[in-house]
């Protein structure tokens, strides 16, 4: 019986001890607060701990001056969004891009319109001229870019040999880029892979150090 009483008291003490930080920061519910208060009345350890944690909480909660500048950060963010929009506009979108994947959808849609207009003008020109196709390649021509299954923007600090090693390990190759935004188009060495395999490669790239952006091109892809 004594054991049971001791065990119950020890369990109550532990519950109280664990709940103290959340009582101190004001997020414990009323029942938890009552329980801790009741226990602390009879437990000097928990009374002292409550006082210590209150002091610590007040110290940790002190506001310090920010280490970074919000305005500069916001400018960088907007610049990044602009650059990504530019990348998205250069890579032909696929038909099955996931709904709800964010504002890129709108840019990709805009890219489709621009491309459609461009291709129809080019097509009409060729039709009327009746000559051979030009030897040059337009940015929207379905060559290398069309083969890209995903695009990446490596951090500037990532060395070339590190990138090469990473891509070799994942059986990926660079098929385009870098463009003005520093983005590369990648394709599987095997030519084509199924959606699960592609998702696994994307996840591995995202987990690798030094990747600022990893995105599937066209089709659905896993979230960040």
């Amino acid at each position, binding site marked *: 019986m004594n054991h049971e009483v001791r065990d119950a008291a020890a369990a109550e003490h532990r519950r109280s*001890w664990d709940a103290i930080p959340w009582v101190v*920061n004001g*997020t414990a519910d009323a029942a938890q607060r009552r329980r801790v208060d009741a226990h602390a009345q009879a437990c000097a350890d928990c009374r002292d701990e409550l006082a210590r944690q209150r002091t610590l909480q007040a110290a940790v909660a002190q*506001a310090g001056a920010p280490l970074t500048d919000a305005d500069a950060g916001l400018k960088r963010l907007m610049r990044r969004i602009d650059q990504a929009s530019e990348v998205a506009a250069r890579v032909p979108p696929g038909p099955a891009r996931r709904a*709800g994947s964010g504002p890129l959808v709108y840019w990709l849609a805009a890219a489709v319109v621009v491309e459609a207009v461009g291709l129809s003008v080019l097509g009409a020109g060729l039709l009327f001229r009746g000559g051979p196709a030009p030897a040059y390649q337009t940015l929207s021509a379905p060559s290398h870019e069309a083969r890209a299954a995903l695009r990446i923007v490596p951090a500037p600090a990532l060395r070339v040999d590190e990138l090469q090693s990473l891509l070799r390990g994942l059986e990926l190759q660079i098929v385009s880029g870098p463009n003005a935004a520093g983005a590369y188009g990648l394709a599987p060495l095997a030519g084509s892979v199924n959606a699960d395999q592609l998702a696994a490669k994307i996840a591995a790239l995202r987990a690798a*150090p030094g990747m600022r952006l990893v995105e599937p091109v066209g089709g659905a892809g896993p979230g960040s």
Partner: protein
Amino acid sequence: MPLLSLIPGRAAPRLDDADEAALLRRIAAGDRAALEALYRPYHRRLDRFLARLTRRSDVIEEVINDTFWIVWQKAGDFRGDSRVSTWIVGIAYRCALKALRDHGDEPAEAPDASHELHPTDDPHARHELADWVAKGMSRLNAEQRATMELAYGAGHSLEEVAGIMDCEVSTVKARMFHARVKLRHVLPVLAGWAARPPGRQENDDEP
């Protein structure tokens, strides 16, 4: 810029959860003004949270940038299963862990806290306390520092901290317990700390 954010020692005014959810819906539709409206108050919160994990301002900048880049891309995926703040700080935490892996997860030396403090009635006492806390926090691992900051700095509940850190509530309790034990050994400035032994044995799973 809101006037309050210009006053030293005052946090930028916080939006409530419904305001933030409304901003997320606008962001999902590509509204940059909504992104800015959400960015400004969160910049301050994330800056101080991340400053507990690293003293490198370049890393903090990178993590905040990555966090809002993801918010911009994924705002449409937010389903309201948690508070917006839990969602955003959770993204920041995951970005921070990745950045710490990339850059090394040890914080710089405990900083001279004097530059962080704002004028108070007793600047010396504040300086001393903040200095001890900074030194004490530098002895914790990244998960323990994050737990302590989320609970005491940002005032999140146990369940919210678990949501942000994407772990079990029991894991948060263990991290908090070990953070408390470590801090009591390095924060004698908080009077009487060393006088009593901890309230229980240090037998949890996270030393």
